[in-house]
């Protein structure tokens, strides 16, 4: 385990050779030992990754932590959830990544786009339309991820059924899940004001969805 939960808002990472950490810039609270920080210029691979990076504007927010020591991470008092990835993959909103093991593979994807570049573009248009920015980072391999949320997350286990999630409360998911962005006319009526909350994510399959107790994005 490379991350230790110190309290609801702070994690401690043990950094060493082969145990480097990528973290959001500005998230280092303090450290002991011989540790250095290096800003990263970009993240994600492939055409989709690059397009996503450009469109999401999130790619330049990360930094690498190297050397030997222990580092505290936290960000603006937001809550932190630690998720262990063991061979499967975690999809999270790019903005919510606090830190993760450097050996995890990352790529940028759209959720609710239906897959593929066409899907990504369609999704991007929809994302832009709703102002939700449903660009996500997909992390896979073996390692640990620390996620930011407003007020903490709660997991919803799915065994084949569907769950509806407010896109603004969606944090991420693990497992083979189908994510669709739906415009709900009834819901639009319920909310009114064209606030963009007329959209829901319909998530189904087998896995875990992480939701925060707030509609606040950051």
């Amino acid at each position, binding site marked *: 385990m490379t991350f230790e939960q110190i*309290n609801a808002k702070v994690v401690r990472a043990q950094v060493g050779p082969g145990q480097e950490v990528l973290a959001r810039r500005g*998230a280092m*609270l303090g450290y*002991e030992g011989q540790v250095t*920080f290096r800003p990263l210029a970009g993240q994600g691979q492939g055409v989709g990754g690059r397009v996503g990076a450009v469109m999401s504007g999130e790619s330049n927010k990360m930094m690498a932590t190297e050397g030997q020591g222990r580092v*505290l991470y936290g960000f603006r008092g937001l809550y932190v959830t630690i998720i262990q990835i063991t061979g499967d993959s975690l999809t999270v909103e790019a903005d919510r990544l606090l830190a993760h093991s450097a050996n995890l593979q990352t790529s940028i994807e759209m959720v609710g786009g239906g897959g593929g570049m066409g899907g990504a573009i369609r999704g991007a248009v929809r994302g832009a339309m709703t102002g939700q920015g449903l660009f996500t980072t997909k992390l896979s391999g073996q390692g640990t991820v620390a996620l930011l949320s407003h007020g903490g997350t709660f997991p919803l286990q799915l065994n084949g059924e569907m769950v509806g999630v407010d896109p603004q409360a969606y944090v991420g998911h693990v497992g083979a899940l189908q994510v669709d962005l739906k415009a709900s006319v009834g819901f639009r009526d319920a909310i009114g004001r064209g606030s963009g909350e007329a959209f829901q994510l319909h998530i189904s399959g087998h896995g875990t969805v992480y939701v925060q107790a707030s509609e606040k994005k950051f």
Partner: protein
Amino acid sequence: MPTIYDPNSLPVDDNINHYAFSIDLNGEWFTSKGAMIAYYGNIDFSGVAAFASRAAWVAARFSSPLYTQDWVVAAGQGKLVIGDRGNDINSYDLEDGNLTIKAVNLLAFQPSLELKQSIVPGFVTLIGTGKFLASSNGPVIFVEPPFRADPDALLGWADCPSPSQHYDYNWMAQSFMAGIQGMFGRESGEERQYDFTGAGTILMQSSEMLRVDSALMRIVESQTNLLDANSAGALGHKLIARAQQSNM
């Protein structure tokens, strides 16, 4: 349903929950303006300056002129409930000791303690024997030197020498090459830390950039007296440029 408290069942100088504290007032406490969220009993609140005109000991205890206008004296008998915007609240007991803490996080202290301004801007030092209350974003994390702390996440320190500033040249060189930021922009926290050495305890919290310390502006403004007129003018232009940039 939450427990229903009354003046007798409210805790005596203890936390009600992580975010609220009940002072058993019998005499005086210094409290920061707006820290009171409720009270039972007969309690008067008056400005530190006004109270000092009636009680000469106040000036000796509150020797921190920059913060005078942000503080009041709560005097009387009763239960006084303290809160701070949903932040965690901790009480600290000093026994002939001293502790330096971020000024915006200090909420209340007993008049048996003395308050002084730290030479580190934005921090104050409490000296003597008594209890004080301070807030933190999330629970306080205690660490020991040698340790380097992001200034935004540093809550305070006790029993160790004041920190020096450490600049990470590696980070700054990389940043210049990547064209990421100018020297005058908002720092991300990785290029500059407070460096603690020696023996003692460092108090950390999750960083928070939203708190405005009204005294900090007074501190910085007073330091511009060191500049001559031309330099002061040049600084003014830079500040205007920065304000315009951040408005875009």
